[in-house]
């Protein structure tokens, strides 16, 4: 699996997801997020183009990321989500927790 990469610009971080947002990826991603936030990032944008699978762990990661960012008055934004995942997130009202944009 290819690595997801994170690009940091001042207090903004852009993460391009290259793997499914599932349990196996969560640990690495968590570390990336934490490092970014520690480094002063306030706003994280996650690009989910082409990602088709999300599981509970992945969702948990997103939620906790937002929780962490909120403490710094920051914001999480998820971009380019596929239609199914969007449906799922909406039904869970995740769109009320952080910003979600579809494809």
């Amino acid at each position, binding site marked *: 699996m290819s690595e997801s990469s994170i690009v940091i610009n001042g207090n903004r971080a852009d993460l391009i997801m290259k793997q499914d947002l599932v349990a196996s990826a969560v640990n690495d991603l968590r570390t990336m997020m934490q490092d970014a936030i520690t480094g002063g990032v306030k706003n994280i944008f996650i690009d989910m183009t082409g990602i088709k*699978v999300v599981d509970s762990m992945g969702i948990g990661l997103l*939620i906790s990321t937002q929780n*962490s960012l909120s403490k710094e008055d920051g914001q999480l934004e998820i971009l380019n989500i596929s239609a199914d995942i969007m449906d799922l997130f909406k039904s869970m009202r995740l769109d009320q927790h952080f910003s979600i944009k579809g494809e």
Partner: protein
Amino acid sequence: MSAMDMNDETLLTYLEESREHLANIETNLLNIEESGADIDEELVNTVFRAAHSIKGGAGFFDLSKIRDLGHKVENVLDMVRSREMVPTPEIVNILLISFDKLKEMVNNPAFSNDEDIEEFVRALAGLTAETLPPEKKESVSGIVDIKLPDGRVIMQMNEFEYNQTVANNNYIYLVQYDLIKDIHDSDSSMLDFHRNLVGIGTIENTVTDFAAVGTLDGEILKSIPVYMLFSTIVNPGKIISLFEVDDSRITIIHDPSPSGEDLTDSVEVPAVSLPVQEPPSPATPVVAAPIVESPPVVAEVPAAVPQKPAPVKAAPKKTAPPEASSTLRVKVKLLEQLMTLAGELVLGRNELEESINQEDLKAIASGGQRISQVTSELQEAIMQTRMQDIGSILSKFPRVVRDLSRQLNKQMNLNIVGKEVELDKTLLEGLSDPLTHMIRNSVDHGVELPEARKLAGKNPVGTIDLRAYHEAGQVVIEIEDDGNGIDGNIIAAKAVSKGLVSQNEVDSMSAKAKVELILLPGLSTAEKVTDVSGRGVGMDVVRSNLDKLGGTMEIDSVMGKGSVFRIKLPLTLAIIPSLLVSVNKESFAVPQLNVEELIRIQPKDIKDSIERLGTSEVLNLRGKLIPLVFLSDVLGIKSTYTDPETGVESDDKRKQAIDRRADNNSENDTIYDEVRIGNDRRYHAGSVLNIVIVSSGNISYGILVDNLHESMEIVVKPLGRHIKSCKEYAGATIMGDGSVALILDIAGIASILKMSAVTSTIQSQSEDETEVSKLGQDRQSFLLFRNSPEEYCAMPLELVGRVEHIESSSIQIVGGKRIMQYMGKGLPIIRLEDSAECKAIPEDNLAVIVFNGFGREIGLLAMRPVDFIEDEMLVDHTSLRQPGIMGSVIIDGNTTMILDVYEIVEKLYPDWTRDTTLTASGSINKTESNGDKPLVLVAEDSTFFRKQVVKYIEGMGVDVIAGEDGEAAWKLLVESKKKVDLLVTDIEMPNLDGYGLVARVRADSKYADLPVIAVTSLAGDENVAKGKAIGINDYQVKLDKEMLLESIRKYI
């Protein structure tokens, strides 16, 4: 979980039923729209039930989008049904397009879940929100609190939605579960779980305890608590197994069972109306799960879960063409009839078998007869099964017209007549596209915008009539609009400019043929190609489609009034009863539909029954005059007759029905009348007239045939390509002996003979001859030709000797005059331009019209084609008057100059006319004793005929004076200085008619022995007798020149 099983019978049945529901909805909705506030509850109910069934079934089969859209539509319809909403055009519009979308999805179920129905849902929801009555409107923004068992309000739900859900007898559960602990840890897939839920109910609301999830630091991802408000009809027991949580975490908020309670409190808090819940749709379709009592299959989580669900957006959105229905609706009664016939067939076969065993010839014959009978009936019944009402394809047109006219800002009504006309199924399918195209054309190009129509004095609302009816073994479909018509000249010009046809060809086309050029491929005269009717590929495709079906198309158009497109299709495989007739041993079939009566006239009765009207004959049938035609003439067959005595066949020499067959001599009647030959029914020597009185629409006429044969049922076969355009025939059939008989098209024959309803329903009154004779008056035959492409000419047919086609090279110029070698002599050639101002005649397509004058044959140069017409003429003698042109008349919309060839000759050869001793035939040697020429007085009210007669007589080298009626002629007679030697008079004249004039002449001793020749269109016996009694010396028919001149010569 497997993909939706498209072969699942229940699924297929559901889809089929849904299609049926959807088929009628459009019509119903349009009717609902029309009724407006006057809501027809039954109708709305029908549509509501349709939506309900579609929605319900969709739920079973996980067709989530179909279900959702169906649900929203149902809501709206419910409001209409309960009169909370008036179905305005806007509302009906939204319903229509929603149903269109549903139809689309039902036809492509496999892809339906990928459809985006967002806008439809929003539109429909918008309707419901807007139109709620005040008390319910509050519920739209009202909130229901959902409480945990401990009383905490964990979430809220939109009151309106809540009420709806409850009204549908759902349980409402509040389930508390943990994404990590309950789902992830048990190896379920998030998405699958979700999908399953959605398959059996609706997720009304979810609350996720985000805070409880924690931050990235610390122990993450241990728990994601979720509260979900879920409505479903599944009962509690099954819910537990679905969520795999223990029942303490499930709270029943609403129990629909009679004893159940509702744990909500409705709170009247004005709040922002919540967005309408859209249950998420699964990415891949799931297996059908019957919901009711069986344990939900969805509880079982499959081991293998697809890692990558089927791509949704990656693949291009595929819309498979809707499946052509491979089923047919057949009336139950017909099926029963088929069953009965099958039974009869079996019985008949048994009977036959038995008879064959017994070798009982008589029984075999009767058995064979029975089988034959049953076979015919069976065949007919089976054919009937394929016949469908044309209404099935016509019913979509109201919608098409409505939508299209709205789009173009035009107003129009569509009237459909003849929905019950039946057609073979294949024909119907092939007709749908052509008809759609033509209807769209009428709306787009035919009917004008309301303002333009008003300016033209028309009703701003246009009308399109769509008619279907049977006629002569064909189905006729007409599309008539009252628009601005089709300008044949524009079409022709376009066609020429596109090189589709040559200018030459166009010039010799009739107006109708030019309009029909629209059927050529590559022609589009719309200024801009509107996508409404498409490019100029239109009409020719229509025509080729029709060709394939064996049909034809006609276009009739009147500028400013409208156009009619007429499609004629054969009722292939139709069986029609018809009458067989024969002419010259050839058999023809006349559809029984058209046969009114059969008449047989004995020779002795012929004179009483048949009269001549001008140059046509009519039958006096119980006081009604029916035009008669010889079938042999119409079809161009030589009529023969077999002498009953000798059995010898010879050509029928009769020119008219009144004539005797073998011999034009009327004295020989009596011989034939008495002959009787054995049991030959034609014992009256074949002089019996066999007439079939036929009718088509309101035109009746009689067809004279050689023989009448039996009446039988025949199978109609379409005409082959080569003769399809023959108007005389509607089809063909194969006789028992294998020979072919053509089926006559009664309406077609009527149109060829230019019959109109008026002439055929004239009542005759024997006393009132004037009415009848008025028709004869001024009926003149003309030869039609042109001098140049734009100049139409005519000359009286009687003058014409022959017409020859020539090359311009045959004409030589000798001594400044044109001459042609003809029959061993030199023929002088004259042209209109020799005497009149006109265009020069072109070099090719020439003809020479040979006529007699001034004692010799002369040829007039003309342009082909040369035609002839017989009609009542309204001759304009003033305009276009020039030497060589005596007047003009309008023929077929073209101003036609009537040439006076003698004037042309006079101009060209002035010395000929002075040579009075030479005449056409023979010479007048008689001169008056005083050396003067004889003087003839002519009385004739028709300027045209008067001039003709004067010319002829002058051509004889005789002086003529003429008066336009009896009084004028009398005046001339009395005042004439010179003695009048002969009176040539018409009978029908105003002021003083022929009889009156002659009576006056005879009464006056001065003129008592003045010879009188009467020239009239009727020379019946009574007239002659009357005339002779008054003192008329001779009767001549208008306008037989030779005979007239002969007669004149006799009396001078």
